[in-house]
Every structure is written in structure tokens, then in C-alpha cells.
């Protein structure tokens, strides 16, 4: 019997499964997050969750962060990978430059971006003013803030998708392209009928990793808007944080966390299944 997996299983049990069960239990209480006492409230937190407009907003935002980031990251990542898979001078430098933002902590990236989008002396508004326009309070509108943060997140992590696609592209045997070229197949058709089907495992990995990262988006939101104005740009993750620590509703925060888990689990599973069906054998 192979016992080498035991340490990993133990760590997973202690640091993920046990807290998960605890979180599920807490969601049935009114615990404030720090007191030594609490009351059991049954399913009250779950009932409240489904009638809470702020949860609805955060839920919608979470989907936008998740799917929006994934779409941008994968379209751009694939385009960059196709471009940088060619042989030309300086491609290694370009790959490094595109991957570099991944090395920066998202929180730091958020604070850097804050100085871009600030109303006063923000880099974007400076450009707008230089072009003769009016200053805009970019983050004052919830939907606009959500869109900006989706783009910021996608651009920061586009390097991850690019690397996954580069690895995938390099695994596709050249003979398919050579055969296609001999048959007079154009580049667009090669992309559609050879590259994309054979890249499906890479697309699956990139989409699932990006999607889960986007659905859990936290740091950039905290740095750029703290979920505001009001609750307008919260994701479910930041809402859990605010509800737990700010509103001192740890029980309710646990219920939101549990529902977030189910949401990500279901979406992740469906996406995985979809791409698994699309895979072709090389």
C-alpha cells in the first residue's frame, strides 16, 4: 500500500476539510466572530441570504469577475501564446515581460492601480485632462468599478494562460501542420481544425484555473474599492470578509461562504465536464 500520499491527505483534512465542516456548523449560529458564546439559529442565515440584495449584487459581480476575467485572459493568453510560439528575436524577453505581473502580489497590483484610477492626480485622469477632457471618478460607479477590476485581474494573470497555451502548443506535433500545408489549408483553418482541438486539455486547465481565480477574486477588490461604493463591487469573497469582520456576523458570513463554495464547485465541475467532452486524442 502506498502511504506517500498520507501527509498531503492529512494536511488537506486539517487545513481544508475540518475548517469546512466548522464553517458549515457556524453557518447555523449567530456567532459574532470573536465572542466565547453564540446561539444556534437553524437555517435563518440561509433564509436571509436568499433575500439579501447585497448578496445578490455580490453574486452577480462574482460571476462577472469569474467569467469576464476568464474570457479576457484566455483570448489574450491564446493570442499571445500563438504569437510568442513563433521564432523571432526577443521572444524570451517578451514572454518574461508578459509573465512578470503574475509575480506581483494582487494586493500590491491593486494599490498600484489605485494610483492609476484615482480621481485626483490619478494617471488615467492626468491623461484625460491632457487630452482636454473632464476628470472622471472611475471607481465611483459600481458597474464600472467591476468592469475595471475584471480587466485589471485579467491583464495581471494573462501570463498564466499564455504559459499554459505555450506548453500546449509545443506539444502539438508539427506533422499535422505540415500535412495541412501540403493540402493547401490556410492558417485560420489550421487554427480551427488542428490547433484548437488539440489544445483542448490546455484550454481546460487554463479556463478552470482562471475561472476559479476570478470567482474567488479578493485582493484587487480590497485594494481598489474595498467592495464599494456601498456593496456595489463586492465579490462573494470580499462580502464574506466584510460580513465576518466588519458586520460581526460570522455565522452569516459562513453561510455566504458555503454557498460560494457550492457555486464555484458547480461551475467548475460543469466547465470541466464540458471541456473533457471536447478533447480529442493526438
Amino acid at each position: 500500500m502506498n502511504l506517500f500520499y498520507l501527509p498531503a491527505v492529512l494536511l488537506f483534512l486539517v487545513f481544508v476539510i475540518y475548517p469546512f465542516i466548522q464553517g458549515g456548523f457556524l453557518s447555523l449560529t449567530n456567532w459574532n466572530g470573536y465572542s466565547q458564546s453564540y446561539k444556534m439559529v437553524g437555517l435563518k442565515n440561509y433564509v436571509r441570504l436568499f433575500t439579501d440584495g447585497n448578496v445578490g449584487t455580490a453574486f452577480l459581480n462574482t460571476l462577472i469577475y469569474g467569467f469576464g476575467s476568464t474570457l479576457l485572459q484566455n483570448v489574450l493568453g491564446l493570442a499571445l501564446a500563438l504569437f510568442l510560439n513563433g521564432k523571432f528575436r526577443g521572444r524570451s524577453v517578451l514572454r518574461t515581460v508578459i509573465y512578470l505581473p503574475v509575480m506581483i502580489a494582487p494586493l500590491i497590483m491593486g494599490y498600484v492601480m489605485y494610483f492609476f484610477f484615482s480621481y485626483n492626480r490619478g494617471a488615467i485622469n492626468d491623461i484625460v485632462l491632457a487630452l482636454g477632457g473632464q476628470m472622471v471618478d472611475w471607481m465611483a460607479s459600481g458597474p464600472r468599478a467591476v468592469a475595471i477590476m475584471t480587466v485589471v485581474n485579467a491583464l495581471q494573470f494573462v501570463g498564466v494562460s499564455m504559459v499554459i497555451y505555450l506548453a500546449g502548443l509545443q506539444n502539438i506535433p508539427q506533422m499535422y501542420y505540415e500535412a495541412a500545408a501540403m493540402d493547401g489549408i490556410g492558417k485560420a483553418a489550421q487554427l480551427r481544425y488542428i490547433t484548437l482541438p488539440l489544445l483542448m486539455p490546455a484550454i481546460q486547465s487554463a479556463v478552470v484555473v482562471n475561472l476559479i481565480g476570478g470567482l474567488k477574486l479578493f485582493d484587487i477588490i480590497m485594494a481598489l474599492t474595498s467592495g464599494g461604493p456601498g456593496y456595489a463591487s463586492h465579490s462573494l469573497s470580499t462580502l464574506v470578509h466584510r460580513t465576518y469582520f466588519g458586520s460581526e456576523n460570522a455565522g452569516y458570513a459562513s453561510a455566504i461562504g458555503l454557498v460560494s463554495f457550492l457555486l464555484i464547485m458547480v461551475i467548475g465541475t460543469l466547465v470541466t465536464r464540458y471541456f473533457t467532452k471536447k478533447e480529442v486524442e493526438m
Partner: protein
Amino acid sequence: MKKTLSLVLTAALSLSLLSACTPAADPQPSSGGAKPSAPTVSTPATPSGEKVELTFMTNVVGEKAAALESALKGFEAETGYTVEFSAPGDSYEELMKTKMSSNELPDVFTTHGWSVARYSEYLMPVNDMEFAGRISDQIKPVITDSEGNMFVLPIDIDIAGIVYNVDVLADNNIDPDSLKTWDDFAAACAVIKAAGVSPMHIGGKDTWTIGQFFDWVAPSFYVTDESASKAADLKAGKFDVPTWTEIAQMMADWTAAGYFNPDVLTADYNSDMEALATGKTAFCFYGPSAIMDAKGVNADASLGMMPIPAASDGDAPSLIAGEDIAVGIWKDTKNAAAAQELLNYLARPEVAGAIAKAAGNSSGLTDVDVELGDIKTYFDKYKSVETFPYFDREYLPSGMWDVMCATGAEILAQKSGAVEDAGKIMEQSFLDKYAG
């Protein structure tokens, strides 16, 4: 196999989202939510020769933290003890809540206004300590619970009004002492606005700055007018919605009139200080520590502090009094004797005075004279003005602060129905938490 692996990976990554929602140790269920009885003071003697290591955590940062750290170094030099100092800044409250949940607190820590309402369950009473008799009458009611226990050494007192830029008011011929009511204040804002300066500045990205507005305004509507005070109702668990709606409406009216900075929802506290220090705004709803912070931006800035206007002609302006740097001892510390030594050391007039000076506040001890420079002028000038506790700390259940901030942000964003919603949401949260 690959499919199974993908599904497991999905589940694992998703689970990590929820794993944060758990206490470090199990809290105990209670049927009535009653607070545990006050802990008894135990002062075990430190065994001779044993190395004593104390942990000290504080919410304060900057000059205040530097002054505290300097005092702790003095204590270390005098006693030979080691004090591990930690000032985590913004994450302090979250860290402390986590520590409280696991009942593993620092030996000594600051309570940022919550020594009674939030931390008393975890603190050792200080009534029998030497400095207790020297605690100022001004702060004593704020740090005393219903059973007469005090839990902290109040090194200074936060006496707060509205801070203002002296030059901006002078340029517009506004005498701050003439602003007796909110109507007077709004009229002054109109003049300042017409002069092209933002009358008030709120850094709403740091949501707590929005809560400040309500903490400053609410007492004048609820408690300062003795003839119409709703203090008893609030204490009895009754929240008056129409009064809160009046406050919310005032904020909405001022927003519509453009009395707040245009980036009120996205600016932060630092930009408040910059605007105040550079004359880009007239008023900020902060205490005297903001004067110190703004002076850090522009040392030549001329800044002052005025009492908070009343809601009606029949009432008088008031000030807010609260804890600032208040230090308590964890009731279960294994270093109780050393921790008490530390508090006694911090209570020495020269030590407490130096820390209070860095905070820009008057002392919480009667025999400590603090060199406050310009700020002292305002403390002396308004020493007869009646003080009231911070509204949220005294009259609202813990956890309401965030509700004030969130509902305020909706009003500042001019969201439809935000004024009416503010009152309803505040009442609902108040009742939920009060019943807690």
C-alpha cells in the same frame, strides 16, 4: 483518471474559499448570550530569575506607535523584561477578533474605544491598581462598565470636534464659533462651496471615514439635547428610525448640494489629510489626531478644532470624548504581574505625557500635563463644552459601525431610496444585534 483529477482539483480550490470561515477555537453555545462574570484579578509573582516575555499589540500607527514603542523600550531597560511590540495597523481589529475567538490574546493590548463593549470579557479589571485613582473624571464614565469595573489605563483622552482649515474659514469670513447649529454649518458650507473650495472632505474608499460622519452628527440628534434625549431608549434596545432618517437626509442634501469632495466615494483618509492641510477643504469629521496627521503633510498648515453643532436652536454644540490609547491586560495572561508592572510604568506622568503628546491629546490621568502646543488652545477654549461618548460605542451594539458606513456610502452615491433604507437597515441591524 484525468477527469477525476480535474474534479478533485476544482473541489479543493473551491473549498479553500470557505476554509477561512472558521474560528481558531470552538466558541461555546449559550442559551441566553449572557456575558461571563467579571474575571478575578490574579497576580502571580514572577519566579526569581525567570525570563519574562510580554506581548504588546496596538492599533495605533505612526507617531503614536513610535511613542509607545519608545516607552516599552524604557520599560525593558528598567526591568530586564522583554516586550514584543506589534502594531499591525489596519488589520489590528481583525487580528484581535481572531485572537478573541481562540481566547489567545496578547498579554497587553490597546482597546481603541472598545474596552467595555467588546474587550471587557477578556480584560483584567484595573480598579485596584495604583493609577486607578488618578484617572480623569472626563474619561472615567467611558471606560467603566455597569458594575463599576474599569479595564484599561487611559493614557490619553480623545476629545474630538470638527477639525478645520483656519485659513479657508478666515478667507470666507466664517467664525467657527458662530456655527452653533447644523443650519449654521450648512450655510457656511454654501459660502465655502461658492468660493470654489470643497466644504467637507470624506475619504469614502476607507469606509470608516463615512462612519465618522454619523458618529459626529448622531449625538446632536439623539442625545445632546436633554429635553429630547433618546439615550434611554437606545440603551433599552429601541431605535428611533425617523431621527436616523433626518440625519441621512441631511447627508443626502449636502451631497446633492456638492458640499462633499467630488471623489467622496473613492478618496481615502490620506487624501482627506492632504486636502485639509493644503486648504482644498474646510472641514473634516475627525479628532485632533487628524491635525497631527495633516501637519505631517504640511507642517505650516493652520488648523483648528471646533465643537460639533447642535441639531436645534435649543441645544448647544458639544464635543465627543472617548478612549484613544487605552491599554489593558488580558485576564488569562501568564505574566499578570509583569503586565501590571508595565501598566504602572506607562502610567508614570513623564511616560504617559510623552505618549499623549505624540497623540495630540490631553492626558487620561489627572496628574499628567501634556505639551500640546496649538491644539491645547482649543482644548482650553472649549473645556466647558459638554462632552458625549462616541455614539456607536455607547449607544449601538458592537458591529453596527459597518452598517453605518455601508448605508452612508449608498447615500453618498445618491442611490435611489438610500435615505429611507438607511433608517430601516440601521433599525433591523440594531434589533438583530441587540437581541444577539
